């Protein structure tokens, strides 16, 4: 079936370095993607989204890149901080009420 998946379950980076979290999707018709951050014991929090008519979108310290050719997107976090430690999910927003979440990548920031 259709799916959204992340490449690595865990990513460990040094504080101050840049982080890159990857996600692959299988549905060629998917045209809207969202990244969420989930801190321990909390609900997911919206980070940034991107539509398929864009290749790149930037937010505060975050950038999402979309490569429709290989059905891949990535979340880049600049100058990673301890507060960035969390689980990150990509989600495929393919239809009304239907967000399909990936399994999540745990980002660990080493001091």
């Amino acid at each position: 079936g259709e799916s959204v998946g992340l490449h690595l379950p865990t990513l460990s980076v040094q504080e101050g370095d840049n982080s890159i979290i990857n996600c692959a999707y299988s549905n060629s018709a998917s045209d809207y993607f969202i990244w969420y951050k989930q801190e321990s014991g909390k609900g997911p929090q919206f980070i940034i989204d991107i539509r398929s008519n864009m290749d790149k979108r930037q937010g505060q310290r975050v950038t999402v890149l979309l490569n429709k050719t290989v059905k891949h997107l990535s979340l880049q976090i600049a100058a990673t901080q301890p507060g960035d430690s969390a689980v990150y999910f990509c989600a495929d927003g393919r239809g009304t009420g239907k967000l399909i979440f990936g399994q999540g990548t745990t980002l660990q920031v080493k001091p």
Partner: protein
Amino acid sequence: NAGVTQTPKFRVLKTGQSMTLLCAQDMNHEYMYWYRQDPGMGLRLIHYSVGEGTTAKGEVPDGYNVSRLKKQNFLLGLESAAPSQTSVYFCASSILGPRDNEQFFGPGTRLTVL
């Protein structure tokens, strides 16, 4: 604004018992959603609502029922709980559908079914 709140935060049930999870939002959002999250997995959509008085099935609706009698509330019911329903349940809301606006999530309800 309190945002999205969920009641209760924790619950332990025995197999066969029933319960209702309450979600409330004070942002006047049209859309509301119930998800479950199992260890090491992403969120899976159980049911959702596109407005007061409406409900629709999501990805994993079996064993659950929902009601949206008031715009601000979305209830998730388990009629006969099973151990497979042990999970963390999240409620979310959005102004429009997920293609147009971000979803705001509640803090979750941790349910254990023995």
